[in-house]
Structure formats: C-alpha cells, structure tokens
C-alpha cells in the first residue's frame, strides 16, 4: 500500500499535545468540537492519532508561505 503521508502534496499532519491544544482553544475561545473535523479513517493521519485528538496541519500556502490548520479527529 502507498503511504499517502509521504506524498509531496500531502501536508504535514501531527497530533497536537494537550498543553498546546489548550493554548489553541484559548486563542480562538472555542471548544474542541468547534474545530473543523477529520475522519479517523483519513489516510493522511499519523498512526497514533485517535478519535478526540486534535491534528495540526501545516501546509504550504499560495498567499502565506505556511498556513496552520487544526482539525478534530472524529469517527
């Protein structure tokens, strides 16, 4: 099987640590359920990601060099 996370077009997905998550939630003043979602079955997710985790995605952007996006893993 091809590991899509190795593909150059797939941005970096990493699980966000609990403390960092607190900061993010604080910054935007939201609950984690207000984040955009990502399916657990998404092949781009790292193996250790579990339902309820928050994923940090750093992708190249046309307008800014790097754009950071957070997503909540759901079933």
């Amino acid at each position, binding site marked *: 099987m091809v590991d899509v996370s190795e593909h150059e077009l797939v941005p970096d997905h990493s699980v966000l640590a609990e403390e960092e998550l607190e900061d993010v939630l604080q910054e*935007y*003043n*939201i609950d984690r*359920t*207000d*984040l*955009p*979602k990502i399916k657990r079955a998404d092949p781009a997710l790292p193996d250790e990601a579990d339902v309820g985790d928050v994923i940090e995605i750093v992708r190249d*952007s*046309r*307008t*800014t060099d790097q*754009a*950071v*996006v*957070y997503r909540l893993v*759901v079933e």
Partner: protein
Amino acid sequence: MSQHAPKEIGELSFGLMDPEEYRDMSATKVITADTYDDDGFPIDMGLMDPRLGVIDPGLECKTCGKHSGSCNGHFGHIELAAPVIHVGFAKLIRRLLRGTCRDCSRLCLNDEEREEFTSRLRRARELGNDLNDVTKAAIRQARKKDHCPFCGGQQYDINHEKPTTYYEVQQVLTSEYPDRIAEAMEPDPDDEDDRGVSPVELADETGIDQGRIQEILSGEFRPREEDRKAIERALDVDLTEEDMNKLMPSDIRDWFEDIPDEDIQVLGINAERSRPEWMILTVLPVPPVTARPSITLDNGQRSEDDLTHKLVDIIRINQRFMENREAGAPQLIIEDLWELLQYHVTTFMDNEISGTPPARHRSGRPLKTLSQRLKGKEGRFRGSLSGKRVNFSARTVISPDPTLSLNEVGVPDRVATEMTQTMNVNERNLDEARRYVSNGPEAHPGANYVKRPDGRRLKVTEKNCEELAEKVQPEWEVSRHLVDGDIIIFNRQPSLHRMSIMAHEVVVMPYKTFRLNTTVCPPYNADFDGDEMNMHALQNEEARAEARVLMRVQEQMLSPRFGENIIGAIQDHISGTYLLTNQNPQFNETQALDLLRATRIDELPEPDGTDDAGNEYWTGRTVFSELLPDDLNLEFVSSAGDEVVIEDGQLLEGTIDEDAVGAFGGEIVDTIAKVYSKTRARIFVNEVASLAMRSIMHFGFSIGIDDESISPAAEEQIDEAIENAYARVQELIETYDRGELESLPGRTVDETLEMKIMQTLGKARDSAGDIAEEHFDDDNPAVVMAESGARGSMLNLTQMAGCVGQQAVRGERINRGYEDRTLSHYKPDDLSAEAHGFVEHSYRGGLNPREFFFHAMGGREGLVDTAVRTSKSGYLQRRLINALSELETQYDGTVRDTSDTIVQFEFGEDGTSPVKVSSDEDNDIDVERIADRVLDTEFESDEAKQQFLGQEHSPTNLSEHADDWWMAQSDD
C-alpha cells in the same frame, strides 16, 4: 404604527402540541360547517365565528375587542370524531411502530444498546451532526429483535402504505395447508429411492396423535401453532401466508400512549415537549379567519378561502361519522368514513402528497392548503419572508450619458417627484422645508406629505400647498422630492456580485430613462439594448451614511474577485486614448483646449514645440499627462505591445490602451485607486472618459464594409493559400485511402486523419488572416480596435476580410446530416474540406449556400451552449450562496459559521482582502514588517516613533459636490 413596541423574543421551542393545549387556546369549538347565514351574518360556532377574529373593517373582535388590522385572529378547534394520523409525521410514526414492542410499548433495545445510542446522540449534538443518522440506526437495531427484551412478546413487521395506512404483517396458517402437507408427503417422482412419508411416520416424527394427523390432512382440524411448526420442520414445507392486519389510528394512539418517557429520550425526542401520541390528532385546530379571509366578489357573492373549503369538508364528514356511529352503522361504513376523514385532514395539511388524489375546487383547480402556502418560490418563506415587494423603488430603462460622473445616476423628474426623502424640520432648515412644501407635489423640488408632531400625516396637494407651507414648524417632518446630490441605491439583475448593487448620487433629469455613465457598465454588466434597472431611495440617515461610505460606485472600483479595478475605460474610450497617444499627434492650442474642455484642466502646460508655420503645439501624450497625478511613476507594457513609461505624472512614451486605463485591471487606474485614493481614481476615470470622447470625436471614427476590403492581389494570394491547403488535404485523404497514413499515438487512423485535416485547414485560415492583415493600414478602424483592445480581435478581422474557416460542432468538423455525407450535394464518404464545413469565403465576400448552412450549424451550437450555461451557472450560484451565506469573518480573523464552528483559521489563509493587496505578482516583499523592524531599532520610545511617523490625514470625500474642497485639502 408607533404603538407597537418592539418585543424581544426570549426563546423558541419546537415540539408537538398537546391536544389539551389546542383546546385551551381555542376561542371556540367549531361544529357547523356553514359560514354565513342568509342575512350575511357569521354563524355562531361556524367557520367564520366572530370569536375567531375580524376581517371586515369596522367590526369588533368578540375575543380581544380589537378592530380588523390590529386583531391577529384567534384559533378555534374541531373535536374529531375519531383519531386521525398527522401526515407530516407519517415517517416518524412508522419508525416508532417498528422500534417499540406491540405488547408493552417499550423500545426494543436492551440497557447496553440504550446506553450506546444515548451517547452517540450526545456526540452528534456536540459535533453538530445529523441526529437522524443516530435515531435511524437505533430503530434499525430495535427492528432486528424478534421478541421484546422486556415482555418477551413476539414482534411483527410493520408495513406502511403511503401516506397514512399502517399494517402489521403476521404469519398465519394458510387455508391450503392440507394440500401443501399432502404434496410434501408424496414421493419425489425424480428420485426412485424416495418413497414419501406416510401419515404414521409423520405422526412419529412430530409427536402428534395419528388421528389428529388424519384430521389435519382432511382439513377438518387446523393445526395449532406448535404442531404447525413441527410439521413444517418434519416435511420442510411452509404452511404460512402473510396476513396484513390494519392498524387503526386509535390502536396506534393507544400503543404510543404506553411508551415510557425514558424510551423516547433514546430516540432523541424530548418527552416533556412532545409525546408521540400527539402525532395522532384527536383535536384539529381551526386557523383564525385572518389566515383565511373570504373575499366579496363584484356581484356581492362571497368567495371563501381554500382552507375554509377544506375545513367545511372536514366538519361535514366529522358530523356524518358521529351520526353513523351513534346510529350503530356497520363497521364497514364506519371504516369508510374514517378513511374519508383521514383523507380530508391529510389534504388540509398537504395537498401534494404522492399516491393521494389532490382535493380540488369546484372548478377543478387543486386547493392550496397549508403546506402549499409555505413551500416553493412563491411560498411564505421564499416569497414573503426572504423576499418582499418594497416601497420607495423605481424601475425603468437605462441609457448612457457621458456627461455624468460615474458616481451619479440621472433620475427622471417623474421618478424624483414620486419618491421622497424625509426632512426633519428644525430652525435651520425651516425656510428650505417651507419652500419644498410650497412648491406642491407636482413642481419638481416639492413635497408630497408632511407629518405633524402628533403623528398625523397630511397630503400636500396643489390646492393646500401654500397654506400648508405656512404651517410647517420645527419638529415637523416633510417628505420632499429627490434632489441632486441625494444618495440612492441602484441595481441590475441578476445580482451576481456585490458590484451589482451600488449607491449613486441623484441628478434629476427630464425624460423617462435612468442615465448612467458608460464606465459603470462592466460592474452591472449592463448595456443599453433595452436593459432596465431598479432604484431604491434610502429612508433613514443611517442607511444613507452607510451607502455613501461603503456602497458608492467609487468605493466599489476594485473588484474582490481579482483585486483589480472593474471600472475603467471601455470600448470607444479606449479607441479614443489609443488615437490620442499611439502616434502622439500634435494639436494647436484651440484643439488641445477643446480636448480637455470636459475635464477640470483649464490651463495648458508649456507647449511641446512649434511647427513649421511657427504655431505652438501640444502632443497627445502631453494632453493625456494632464490627467495624471503629478508624482505618478509607472512602467508597463501596453496591449498594443509597446513600453509605456510614466515619470512624475508625465507620459513620456507608449500607447494608452486597454492595459493602461481599461476596466478589468487597467494598470494606471488600478495604481491610482490603490496608491492614491478612490476619489482620485474616480476623477481620473471620469476625465479619461471625457478626454477620450473628445479625442475620438476630433479624429472621427467609423467602420464600414469597405474598411475590410483588400486588394485583388491580396485576394489572389489568399485564394492560393486556400488552394494549397486543399491540395494538402487531398494528399492526406489519398494517403489514408491507400492505407499508408500513420496513426498518432493513442488515436485511430480515422481520428488522425481528421486531426491532420483540421490542422491543415486551421493553418490555411491563419495564413489567409496574415495575408489580409498585411494589407491593412495601422489606422484601419478595425485594426485600431483590435490592437487597443477596445473591441474585436484580429481573428474577427480575418474572418471578415480573409476566410471564415472551418465550422465545428462538438469540436469536430461537421459530420452529421445524411448517411455517410453531410448534404446531398456531396458523394457518400467524401472527406474533402468543403464537404465537412470549411468556409473558404470571407464574411465580406459572402458565403455560398452550402457554406451558409454549415455556418448556421456551428452558430446554433454556440447559442445553445450559452443558454445552457446561464441556467446551469445560475442554479450553481444559488446553491453556493445558500451554502456559504452564513459564513462570516470574525474580528479575530477567523471565518466561522453561525454555530461558531471554525471554517478558516485566518480569512483566505493570509487574512488579507484581495482589494487591499498589490496586484503586482513580483511584489511580494513584506514591506510593512521590514519597515516596522527598521523603526523599532531606530526609535527607543513609542512617542518618538509616533512623532517621526506623524498622522496620516486623509480627507473624506462623500459627494460629487465636495470635489473642490477635496482637491484643496489634498493639493494634488
């Protein structure tokens, strides 16, 4: 009006309604199916009972005492003789029937499953997912059970016959059971070893008494449940058939009443607000008469609303039902009436249910009942709540007026005298207000109404205007006519982007059309072939201020779609500036001043030189430079292809054409709008348009059929080129016929041939174009327009003068028509150019009949394509807008929907607006950050930094009438 204090909505709750609640809120029980008696008075406890509200003016409501207009009406109720199903809940009823036990009414899920679905429900609520997915899954799980986990009762399948009939499907003994058993006991004729089963063997195997077996076989005795199963097992036969047992609404109601509260909680229903048995109606609310007013026709007859008609039907059947039941009518008749009652109640709520014939008016027209009032484009939501008809609006044909500023709109005087603005009279504008009133409603700057402080509105008439003007005092309100400088909103449908609705300043004009500056055509996508536009007069100071600051045309110059100007020179403006600057012609003083007469320039600069006769002259570029800001520096390549150099506001070199001043990203307009200000850009565009019109009039510009004619020599050359192409096509065909044509990778030989022929003919047309082009002078009007980007292209010119070229349908040469040929003029399987739609003539030379026919085929495809595209894209746009309408950029830069879920963490990933960003591709240096860094190292304290930076003073300009003041402020 003013006695209605605005009320705040504290809470909305959705749920089912308790029949007791219907009775409580009912003003009266309705028992009579009639409306008015012979004297024309409403019948008591009839459908028009005066307690249900008033519609006739002058009468008083018997319930609340208010008069028509202020009384909202009151509900009544009908006590239904038997319960009926509410069609709107047919699916939910089916689900509950399938998920709950037929004996004890409990949800057929054990504790573990309940726990699971409750938590899934909670989760779905948190994540904002569809709760239906969870509840559907719960029902599916419950349906799997054959026996109730609580009482152990056997469960049967529920069949739902749309719209409102439910059956319980039970397996019962078929009437043919003796035959089936006998058949199974016979020996198999194909199998010699099989000797069949004797009754004795069967009795042994099933454990049933031998005599009983005989009785069963003769059909004298029906086997009991367990015996039937034993026989079925022994003989491997099916002795059952499906029996449909109809569930009456009253049965269902009893069933639902026994469902415990905590069980429906698992299905996502709040039992406090909605009990499932309330889905079966025992009481029907009667809408107030204000919701179904009757109208009096010209002949004095009353015509009732469709809802009233439907209610009459319901009450009649209800009455008959009760009478029949009391008289002890047979069950069959009762059931028929019950079904009829169900039908009327169903169509009362929804008259477009599939499988049910719609209830019709006497004339045969289907009745418009409750759900038809709400649904669809003309329904309550899309037709009356999201979209309404408005006051203070006008619509008429538009026409061009180059003397107006792009911020302005010419409003016909008859529109201006009809639409008003409210003046709050005070000591300072008292005289002005009186002047308006004394002019009366017909003379132009007049007034139509005055309002006294006690709230009374008086109409200004020709007769009373003088008198009324005297009476006007401070604190009065005067509705005066629109005058020059008022702000209004202007719109052209389809409103596809925000520039389709912009604010303009009024200029009152004679005649009947709205007048626009031609430079605002691109944002509205307007032309003057009969287009109409709408105007809305703003009615309060807040709206006017907002329109002036945010919506005025000049504020919308930059399109958020591509971040460049959408307003600029178009068509003749571009031809004009091209003529003025391309060859850089010379003008004497009179001519130069005439060119600039419609601009604010009234003094010429130093002349560029003197001609042979000793007269001073100014060049076109110098004249154009007068319009530029003094410190503008710019370099770019024009669409004509030459390098444009602007230094210190002087055009030194190059042609001003579409790439410089055009709409859709004209370099100079874009730069002025971004670097200077929107006001400066507006002044520039206005002046470029004026100058261009003057210059095109100076040179004269026209196009006729002779402008596309070419010399006989050139014509011969073109013919030769086409002749050559024909020869090459012939060659290709011959190679193909010999079978020597080599196919291109991935294509068949036929496709390859087609491609090569198309290529050859394409080249032929291009070379014809090249030849024609060579023979046109640079001052040929068609060439000027194509070069400058004003209108048309060199291809258009080629087709007019040289050769129209290959006609195509679906991207291929024309291949349709008769068997193996396009027209009967050609032999079958003729592959030549002319047999497949190559038009070798030019439009000017004229097409021959066959060419004309092929050309019409290609042209038709184009027309169909545009028609299909507009309807498709319109629908796509509607869906996109509906999907995105609630997204909003918050103050923290995130984009969120209404439930605060984040969609983008930073608007567009960079948090910048496309109209505020440089449109230059290589200009991606973060100047701001660099400047900040330099400043931070340079200055120690914030005060010192602030002192150095100073405050930027940008004067606001809110009206065309304030331009002189604005110019003085910004000393440009």
